């Protein structure tokens, strides 16, 4: 359980919180998203992209594993679901230490590549329109961000 959590009552509320989060991120920040199929990981990322000023359509990266976008900062959107049981490194270090924001759906499948400092968000399905968002900040930077955003 996280001490930072909130319930969203619509897709819009989820994208709005992501949009607000985007405004306080800095280059090299890593956000990991966990949650079942249809929980809202990609929806959250769309909100974040919007907040970063990305104009192109942000759609699912499941097929190519990573998609890159240009906003005020670059956005690297990954879905590593298909990397389960593989030790594949698609160049994570370069993404995570790069000039952009990395968002990783199903991040626990690449646990060993994840940086120590990151913001993990668990999304849980409550009902058709409701989701529980739990925030787990690792490192002072993200602890500060989350207490500003949620606290």
């Amino acid at each position: 359980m996280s001490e930072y959590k909130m319930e969203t009552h619509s897709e819009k509320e989820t994208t709005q919180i992501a949009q607000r989060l985007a405004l306080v991120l800095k280059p090299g920040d890593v956000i990991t998203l966990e949650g079942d199929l249809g929980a809202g990981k990609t929806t959250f990322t769309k909100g974040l992209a919007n907040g970063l000023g990305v104009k192109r359509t942000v759609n699912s990266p499941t097929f190519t594993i990573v998609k890159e976008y240009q906003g005020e900062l670059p956005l690297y959107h990954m879905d590593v679901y298909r990397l389960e049981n593989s030790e594949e490194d698609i160049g994570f270090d370069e993404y995570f230490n790069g000039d952009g924001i990395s968002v990783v759906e199903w991040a626990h499948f690449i646990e060993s590549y994840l940086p120590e400092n990151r913001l993990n968000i668990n999304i849980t399905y409550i009902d058709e329109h409701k989701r529980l968002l739990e925030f787990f900040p690792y490192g002072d930077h993200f602890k500060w961000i989350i207490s500003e955003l949620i606290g």
Partner: protein
Amino acid sequence: MKKDNYIVGIETSCDETAVAIVKNGREIISNVVASQIESHKRFGGVVPEIASRHHVEQITIVLEEAFEQAAIEWEAIDAITVTEGPGLVGALLIGVNSAKALAFAKQKPLIGVHHIAGHIYANRFEQEFQFPLLALVVSGGHTELVLMKEHGHFEVIGETRDDAAGEAYDKVARMLNLPYPGGPHIDRLASNGEENIKFPRAWLEEGSYDFSFSGLKSSVINTIHNAKQRGEQLKNEDIAASFQASVVEVLTEKTFKAAQQYHAKQVIVAGGVAANQGLRAALQEKFSDTDVSLLIPPLKLCTDNAAMIAAAGTIAYQQGKRSGWDLNANPALLLE
């Protein structure tokens, strides 16, 4: 007399390691595909690392086989064409690097091809193109409406805003505990089911040719979830039939509207989901009373192959396009 063009195609963007030789862009001389779907089934999807390793093991064998079947010598070859993207980077690299090495060793022009341009050009083995042409591209990674006013020029007029159609099929299949790849299983179940669940259709704004399948995905999740809570057991066949009805209706209607607006002479369907029986039937029905010529490739050309890459590559070759030695795998390559 114009000289015949013999073009080599190489494709390694995902599951299949494929090499083909095509004459004049429309005649398949050889078309060899080594699939690895069997080894990916266990993992519920393509595993990039395994995919790359397979490609490395297969590429030389497949290449030799393609030349043997074609009974052709390297002297007769005009150019080497290869999928440069989109796809999995590690997988694409094997094809691109092989193509580069061959082009260098055999002193042939090298041409990078967009994977989707290939899927579209697979149809040219069946029939010559008529422009304006509208292509519905539906696969695991793509759902796009592409307008072509002439050979080699592509304009994306609509695309998915979230999941691709094939991806939605795979995800629903996962919810129903069906094996990978899920599309064919849903298609088969759907034909034995009843369309008795009302799933939403994502039409989006008036006049938009974009698609969206994540709302449908949610609706399937909600339906299964709610039924479980009520202690009801839904039939997988009915879920499949109702889900497929939603996907097919949106794809068909949007394609039809776009064909009208752009005065398409020809509509073609491309990509793996073109193999879907429900979609094929609905499109045939919808276009039956029009003078638009509808072209759906035979099943063996719907899935990834290299003949289609050579076919698209032939046009690029004839239009004078060439890639440099800096040609690289580009997982996010845009179609233009």
